[in-house]
């Protein structure tokens, strides 16, 4: 797992979150985990295939998911329904799609799979045992979004 694989996701997250939420995101401390997992309450799970392949998980608290979904939909959400889940999934889709374009510019052409939303803490996604790089993105009043990237170059 190379650091150069996570940078496009951080850049994409910055531009997407700035445009969607109207805030200036800030980057937290980069960390490495032996495998990809999330301790967050709400996770967007996406697959990447192509010259680099693996998984990307965007994790956040339920409160953050509610705030982001409310902002995207344009009105406060009463329950986390299908529309709210779809808004959160679309956020993951937009960040990953924009990151894929940046990866392609570096020669790593890849495709992404439609996102899945998982609600529940301590979810471990077992795919291949490649280490994951984790970057928290601080979103001001919205809370924080944790980006977990576990990609490897296709042999």
């Amino acid at each position: 797992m190379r650091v150069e694989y996570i940078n496009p996701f951080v850049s994409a997250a910055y531009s997407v979150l700035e445009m969607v939420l109207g805030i200036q995101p800030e980057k937290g401390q980069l960390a490495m985990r032996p495998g990809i997992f999330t301790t967050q309450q709400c996770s967007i799970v996406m697959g990447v295939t192509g010259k680099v392949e693996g998984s990307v998980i965007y994790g956040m608290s339920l409160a953050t998911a509610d705030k982001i979904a409310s902002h995207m939909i344009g009105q406060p959400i009463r329950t986390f329904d299908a529309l709210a889940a779809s808004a959160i999934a679309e956020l993951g889709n937009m960040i990953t799609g924009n990151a894929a374009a940046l990866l392609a510019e570096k020669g790593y052409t890849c495709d992404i799979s439609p996102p899945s939303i998982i609600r529940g803490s301590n979810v471990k996604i077992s795919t291949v045992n490649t280490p994951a790089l984790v970057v928290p993105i601080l979103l001001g009043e919205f809370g924080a979004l944790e980006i977990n990237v576990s990609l490897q170059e296709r042999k």
Partner: protein
Amino acid sequence: MGKRILVTDDALFMRVTLKNILTQHGYEVAGEATNGREAIEMYKSLKPDLVTMDITMPEMDGISAVREIKKIDPNARIVMVTAMGQKNLVVEAIQAGAKDFIVKPFQPERVIESVQKLLGN
């Protein structure tokens, strides 16, 4: 009467967002398709004036759907609206027959500008 538009996206949120933007500007959303295959079927039955098309969708992707719709109607006006902004996909979509390519996230004005340009009003 407003021009009729078929919205294609697997994400409910995106269909609702596009529908709101379009209806607020006087367009009628004739139908909402959730994948490429549905878009082709709905294109045949609804004969919309314009189609918005996502790329990454289950069942059939948006670029394949553009090719099929263009076979049915070579004059079909299709605008890609997708999070996948790679150059190769833009080129592929335009070669398939798409008239414009909007990368998500977008400002509502970007969608309206594209639709107005293609529908001539």
